[in-house]
């Protein structure tokens, strides 16, 4: 065997699982052509315009909803004591969770030398950014006075008032803003060499100027690459703890309170697993249509889909473990309120949502044990939607059912979402999709230069 791969590269690449991470027959040139053409030369498909316009219409709905909210106050939502957190925080946690898959794929899988990540990382990172943008909207507008949101930050002020540093809600401000910043940097740094490719290949003057400015003078010299590799690895190291820390802090938002259904020690790892679960579901939801529309089956192969399905199976089982232990301890603990909380979830007014959650998150995903399911694109797509719904229901159940039955029956209440609850939620889905449509149209959705390193040609040069 001539020129064996270095030992460390061989590990964990999952070699031997059959389907390659890039279809045979590609060269440096064909990879660059195929990916950059989506942005530069190919006619934009009609589907893109239709999709973009739908998403933009929903974004318009979001703007209307938020404007009305600012004028009228958050009374337009169904939130009211005892259910002071409802759709807004459910959606916040849901969106933040979705972002986690992007960070996991780009940072952790990079450090673990999982080369299959290469064709999905750019795309997943963009998804993270869009999801964090959507997530940020909810707590910001839930304050009711978003123009005073800077009060959340600790700064010396004439009133001598500081945030309550013991409150995880304050940690959340730091966690989420750090997360957004690092994700943006990581994504942009990774884009620089490809932006230079677009600059060099662009036929239009505007394109050359815009891509040229964004490429920061990248010429591809050995020195540039050396600095780039160092910076990218460092950013990956910084981003890795964020995969765990952000959703851990989100789980503390609930767990440090003494509300039955919130105050339980399993929350941090179980929230993190749930975040990755929903994030991978969303990556599948998006990548399956995109690879079909743009003909990228050579780059996003069945191997990628199957690996993502496996991650979903594992994280889904961890989530199921969380439900099991939580229910068992609610009984075992002997606390009447905890016991009632679980019983209320199972049989109370929101029971249909609870059972739907178990169906979507625990029962249906067990079909992922079968390889035939993991490699069936249609089934995977439907399943990813099911898990997206399931993970949304999970947050809804945790937040609403825990709050609506307080310690005192006299303070019990019900929550009903209003039109504006729904419109804001749908609006953020529109915003998320609109941003992604723009990304797909104007930036290379697969990392061109990293894909080239996967080719046999690149191996020969080492």
């Amino acid at each position: 065997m001539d020129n064996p791969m270095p030992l460390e590269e061989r590990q964990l690449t999952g070699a031997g699982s059959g389907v390659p991470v890039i279809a045979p027959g590609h060269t440096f040139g064909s990879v660059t052509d195929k990916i950059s053409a989506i942005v530069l030369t190919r006619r934009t498909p009609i589907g893109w315009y239709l999709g973009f316009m739908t998403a933009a219409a929903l974004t318009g709905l979001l703007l209307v909803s938020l404007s009305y909210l600012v004028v009228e106050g958050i009374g337009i939502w169904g939130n009211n004591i005892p259910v002071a957190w409802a759709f807004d925080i459910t959606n916040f946690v849901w969106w933040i969770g979705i972002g986690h898959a992007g960070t996991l794929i780009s940072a952790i899988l990079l450090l673990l030398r999982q080369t299959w990540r290469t064709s999905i990382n750019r795309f997943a990172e963009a998804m993270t950014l869009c999801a964090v943008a959507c997530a940020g909207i909810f707590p910001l507008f839930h304050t009711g006075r978003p123009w005073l949101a800077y009060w959340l930050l600790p700064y010396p002020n004439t009133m001598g008032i500081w945030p309550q540093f013991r409150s995880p809600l304050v940690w959340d401000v730091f966690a989420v803003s750090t997360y957004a910043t690092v994700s943006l940097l990581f994504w942009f740094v990774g884009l620089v060499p490809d932006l230079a490719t677009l600059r060099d290949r662009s036929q239009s003057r505007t394109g050359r100027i815009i891509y040229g400015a964004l490429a920061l003078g990248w010429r591809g010299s050995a020195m540039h690459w050396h600095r780039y590799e160092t910076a990218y690895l460092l950013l990956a190291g910084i981003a890795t703890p964020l995969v765990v820390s952000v959703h851990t802090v989100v789980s503390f938002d609930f767990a440090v309170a003494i509300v039955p259904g919130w105050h339980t020690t399993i929350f941090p790892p179980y929230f993190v697993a749930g975040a990755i679960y929903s994030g991978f579901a969303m990556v599948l939801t998006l990548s399956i249509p995109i690879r079909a529309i743009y003909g990228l089956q050579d780059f996003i192969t069945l191997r990628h889909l199957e690996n993502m399905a496996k991650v979903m199976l594992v994280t889904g089982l961890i989530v199921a473990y969380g439900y099991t232990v939580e229910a068992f301890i609610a009984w075992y603990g002997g606390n009447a309120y905890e016991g009632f909380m679980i019983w209320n979830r199972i049989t109370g007014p929101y029971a249909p949502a609870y059972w739907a959650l178990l169906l979507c998150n625990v029962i249906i995903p067990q079909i992922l044990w079968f390889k035939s399911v993991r490699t069936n694109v249609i089934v995977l797509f439907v399943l990813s939607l099911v898990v997206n719904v399931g993970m949304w229901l999970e947050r809804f159940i945790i937040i609403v059912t825990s709050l609506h039955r307080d310690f005192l029956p006299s303070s019990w209440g019900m929550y009903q979402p209003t039109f504006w609850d729904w419109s804001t939620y749908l609006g953020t889905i529109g915003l998320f999709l609109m941003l992604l449509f723009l990304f797909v149209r104007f930036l290379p959705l697969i990392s061109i230069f990293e894909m080239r390193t996967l080719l046999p040609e690149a191996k020969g040069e080492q």
Partner: protein
Amino acid sequence: MALRQTADELIPELRRYQRQLLLAGAAGAVVSFVGYVLNPAQFFQSYLMAYMFVLGLSLGSLALGMVHQLSGGAWGVVIRRPIGAAARVLPALTVMFLPIAFGMHHLYEWTHADVVANDPILQGKQLYLNTPFFLVRAAIYFAAWNGISFLLNRWSLEQDRTGDRRLSRRMQLLSGGGLLAYGLLTTFAAFDWMMSLAPHWFSTIYGVLIIGGQALSAMAFLIVVLVWLSRRKPLSDIVVASHFHDLANLMLAFVMLWAYFSFSQYLIIWSGNLPEEITWYMHRLQPGWRLVALLLVVFHFAVPFVLLLSRAVKREPDTIMKVAAAILVARLIDLFWLIAPEFHQDGVYVSWMDVALPLTLVSLWLGCFMWQLRGRAILPVYDPQFEEALGPIIDQGGETPRTAH
């Protein structure tokens, strides 16, 4: 090629060590029996701690082995045989559980009918916390753990003999379900044997905390074993710095996980400050025990964490072995801190049996481990990953391959 020979033929001194360890264990058992006669309550407390420690070595190894079946990677190929040998101590551990079954009355308050009669909360838990069901559950746990270990080891041996690649598929399938079973059963075993020492207290992360501890114990032990083996032929020609680097990175990950789980549990209970939960920490954080807790913060997390960030430490067999051995000691102290304060609520107390029983059980466990290690080839030569993970090194006659970064 020497790789097909059994460890017994390659490393003859294993037999001598095995005998010495088993003899030491037998001597320790005699001494421990004196302890049992003098102070049975203390005997069972120390025994439970020592037992959970050695059980963690076997179960953690079993779990890591199953993870490797599913994930692949060179890190697991070089430690596969020690993993198997550690898992094959499980039948002996099953027998070693009997003293706990006999000592239940000394350990578990909920077995006292008079206490339960005056305690409505414990009455509510009687459906789960009662002696017959406790024993039935233990039987289920051991049946499942032993069954999984038995099948995986048998198929692996068969593969060694026949080279049948299809067995790998079968082992992977069992490992998928096996990990699920291991996770659930170990959680409930942790609830039964350790959490119910404080029968009013509960924590949903407790099982995860014990599982993470087992993985860390097993990884640290396997690193020590691999360093020891790598000083002898034939592994001295095969195990290279990057193997230690990978294993040490995994150990670092487990150190961080343990700290993450422990801190999460502490923060959530401290913030809530509910009487039913915080009492558990109040016993463990009163003067005296607080010092043990601080020792854990420093030596179970901070020091190994900082050391394991260093590339030089991870790649040098001598230093990584020392770090791993220190982590094993810290693991034992962690179990001590989880168990002993429940019985000594007025301040820190270390009995001579807290030293004698771990020494005894570790000697016996290690003796069984050596015995199991001897019977098989030192590397899984027919493992599908074998060629890929170790082929180049063997081809180059032990030259360290160029590393990726």
